[in-house]
């Protein structure tokens, strides 16, 4: 999947390569109507509203995607939204798919998928630690990497750190 297919130009391709086509149809049927197919760059993704995430993950898990690579967040301050990306793969199949959802930036909160995959528990704790996004009914949501007395969420684009002398690169 990851060897760059030659005809894949960065611009949205007119025709999809066959295996992406098959993946899209299979999952579109499974995930239902509110999953919008989106292929920016090379990683195929489905955009979902925030509240449909947990059910989509459950259906994905039944559909054989039993391996959650990671959960991560991308900060778009200009559009005042966080984009949360769940990338799921298969332990015995070649497919991999990303589920993408947006949440507002002011008080970011989303349903936790740690019931579906246990590995999500620590990944979500890390996102809470570095982004400040709260995950509902998560087993124990606390800072995982930073000191408990740390103010602010470093990975946000607008993070300014006066306490720990962060040296900006001169060029």
């Amino acid at each position, binding site marked *: *999947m*990851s*060897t*760059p297919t*030659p005809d*894949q*130009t*960065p611009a949205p391709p007119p025709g999809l390569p066959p295996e992406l086509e098959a993946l899209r149809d299979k999952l579109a049927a499974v995930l239902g109507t509110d999953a919008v197919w989106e292929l*920016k*760059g*090379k*990683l195929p*993704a489905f955009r979902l509203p925030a509240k449909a995430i947990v059910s989509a993950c459950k259906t994905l898990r039944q559909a054989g995607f*039993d*391996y*959650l*690579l*990671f959960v*991560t967040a*991308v*900060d778009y301050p200009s559009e005042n939204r966080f984009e949360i*990306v769940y*990338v799921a*793969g*298969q*332990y*015995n*199949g*070649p497919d*991999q798919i*990303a589920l993408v959802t947006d949440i507002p930036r002011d008080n970011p909160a989303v349903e936790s998928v740690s019931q579906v*995959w*246990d*590995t999500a*528990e*620590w*990944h979500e704790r890390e996102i809470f630690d*570095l982004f400040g996004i709260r995950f509902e009914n998560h087993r124990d949501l606390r*800072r*995982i*990497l*930073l*000191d408990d007395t740390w103010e602010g969420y*470093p*990975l946000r684009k607008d993070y300014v750190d006066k306490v720990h002398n962060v040296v900006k*690169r001169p060029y």
Partner: protein
Amino acid sequence: MNAPVPVESPVADTYQDYFINMGPQHPSTHGVLRLVVKLAGETVLGVSPHMGYVHRGIEKMGEAQTAMQFTHLTSRLDYLSAHMNNWAWAMVVEQALGVQVPERAEYLRVIMSELTRISSHQLWWGVFGMDLGAFTPFLYAFRDREKVNDIFEKTCGTRLTMNYIVPGGVMEDADADFEKDTRAFLEYFKPLIEEYEQLLSGNIIVQERTKGVAVLPPELAKSYGVTGPTLRASGVDYDVRKNHPYGVYPRLSFQTALATEGDSWARYKVRLEEMRQSIKIISQALDQMPKSGPVRAKLPAVLRIPPGRYLSRVETARGELAIFLVGDGKPLPYRVKIRSPNFSNLSAFPAIIKGWRVADIVTAMSTFDLVIPDIDR
């Protein structure tokens, strides 16, 4: 004979349990990982790992460094599989830019990665012996590791944090007698694995301390996203080189080392077997490698990452490393997420260590082969 004490047994509540800190500085945590262990006498009731003591914020730095500059940080992530980390970053950038890597560079990448895998497993084997209490294997393993470092030094210039595999191919062509040295090392090291077997595996005390200890059931492993030798020891046949082939791995024939019991002994056996497989891969790659040819593709001076999401997956010595890159057309990446194998492997650890003893925490953790800066990033 090696069964864990059932935690709810009356023994547990007659003792009043107390907390112990296998603190940031502990000989057997190989780095700065703090395990808060809840003990009832010698029996472990629960373990809660505390990380972040060597969290350097590499993902934040990724947003301030161009694609070429970030390579040197990836080799400092999991410094025992430096080449594979660099390869993951190079692959994600090549995927974004749609760059075709020349043939010889692909082969050099495979050989370097497999050599790193051998040297990483050597170090793991030595430190595993030291964790069990025997000091001599540590020095045997490092004597052989020096030989691998000599090969790296001649070609990549450094012993540990190599910035050799860069986006577009490989930094420099291999050293003149690179092939001769590597073949000499393979001949030298092949019989030595048998010596490793005699020194530690044949020892009844080692078998007694690892057989049946800290069993990782496959279902639990899959749910916690465990990958690498730790997973393959539980019977799940998942190897990124086979499931998501990259580079020239499809042309090389090798088996993934598998075991079914899933206990510390199985993890130990799987890693020794992996060393043998790596030797096979290297010898095949050396034969098929084109003798000369370009080692680096032409790249524009400023690498602008086209907008979109890109993902590369590589099999490092400890599991699957995936790098997720979001570009927005500017030379600096917009977001870099590094999915480290040790982070997920460690998340499965507290679930399997209940009921065992303090000494088993050390054994089980050293068979998990954790590298702490890779967990904290």
